[in-house]
């Protein structure tokens, strides 16, 4: 098993594109090392991307924020201004695993692990984040909702890596939130996750919204019907009911040991409403 830690994107892309056998990108390793240990994967080449500066930095860009794919959850939590602009994204990232896992786990890894239950992904999708990719044909941007196609299946081509995420500028009176349901209080995998981002006008009416649901389909969903259900409202009871109905309709979950189809569908509706109410409160305070 070969290990490489290139210091340039070009170097990383060339290594991955030229790999003969199975190649894996290493960011925080909290999924990859577990999968290697369990013999789920046995890569011939591991490309550690943490020495590439763009993957490890958080910077302001065009009024928004660029977050490196290999920035850890613990680092995001300590970034006061990012947390103020995107509390939902940061809280979602901070729900992944323990303090120890937070010291290593990354947004890029959470997305590229390809789990529909990934906690940070609904928050990133609700935020309207763009994944910035680098590959043999150069750079391109993909909306985060288009990166994952299904469990363990990504839209990345051979040699392509997620380098960073761009979160858009925040208008006044905007905020976001993320909630998940797990049967315990800490360290578990989402049975359902809900991310909501919204903006208000001066009168408190929702002018823009994005709603995303995790663990209720083969991929994390961007539910535009749920956003439409609350845009133009002040999230009154009628709008909350429409939001719940839209969330319910969008769900295509599986039955498994963590939740039945019926339970997941119900929880998706409830979490969508609660998450939207938190985002609304935060937006009012901004």
């Amino acid at each position, binding site marked *: 098993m070969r*290990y490489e830690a290139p210091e340039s994107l070009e170097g990383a892309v060339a290594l991955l594109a030229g790999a003969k056998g199975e190649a894996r990108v290493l960011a925080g*390793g909290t999924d990859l090392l577990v999968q290697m240990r369990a013999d789920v994967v046995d890569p011939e080449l591991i490309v*550690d991307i943490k020495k590439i500066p763009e993957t490890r930095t958080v910077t302001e860009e065009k009024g928004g924020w660029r977050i490196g794919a290999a920035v*850890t959850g613990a680092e995001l939590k300590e970034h006061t201004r990012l947390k103020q602009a995107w509390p939902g994204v940061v809280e979602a990232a901070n729900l992944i695993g323990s*303090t120890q896992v937070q010291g290593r786990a990354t947004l890029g890894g959470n997305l590229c692990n390809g789990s529909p239950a990934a906690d940070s992904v609904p928050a990133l999708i609700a935020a309207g984040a763009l994944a910035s990719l680098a590959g043999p044909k150069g750079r391109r941007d993909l909306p985060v909702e288009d990166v994952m196609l299904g469990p363990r299946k990504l839209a990345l081509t051979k040699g392509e890596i997620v380098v960073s995420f761009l979160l858009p500028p925040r208008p006044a009176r905007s905020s976001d939130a993320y909630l998940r349901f797990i049967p315990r209080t*800490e360290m578990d995998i989402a049975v359902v996750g809900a991310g909501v981002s919204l903006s208000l006008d001066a009168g408190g009416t929702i002018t823009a919204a994005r709603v995303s649901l995790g663990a209720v389909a083969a991929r994390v969903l961007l539910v535009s019907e749920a956003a439409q259900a609350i845009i133009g409202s002040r999230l009154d009871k009628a709008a909350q009911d429409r939001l719940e109905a839209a969330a319910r309709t969008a769900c295509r979950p599986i039955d498994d040991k963590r939740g039945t189809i019926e339970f997941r569908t119900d929880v998706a509706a409830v979490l969508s409403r609660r998450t939207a109410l938190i985002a609304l409160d935060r937006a009012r305070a901004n």
Partner: protein
Amino acid sequence: MAKHHIEATVNGDPAEFLCETEDTLLDVLRDTLDLTGSKEGCSSGDCGACSVMLDGRLVCSCLVLGCEVGGRKIETIEGLAKGESLHPLQRRFLEAAALQCGICTPGFLVASKALLEKNANPSEHEVRFWLAGNLCRCTGYDKIVTAVMDTAAAMRKG
């Protein structure tokens, strides 16, 4: 393929070792550097028995590759005591019987020290959340949490 030749700092001293790509930092610490204080519980990042500090950040050494740590600073349980003098957390764990079989204890101590360096006055809630990634099958946690809170209080008094 040839082994990786890695130079790092372990508990303040330079350390040099050879490892295979698939060797974890925990494998290297225990099997190559003879630092067997860090324990292998689950090897999947769930139990925290292998907790160490990597460049000042609390991590599970079972989820770090040995070949990743070149040039980096690692602190293990072996670095907690200064010679014969135990760290206040170690003393308090002994006095309060905050351990039984002891397998989880090195991880709890490393994690608790990391917490107190970040937050000298944690609430019980904060202690429990911070230590949620350290599993103990003996104590029921209460004595551990109390020992951490008591140590924090004593250290604040100086």
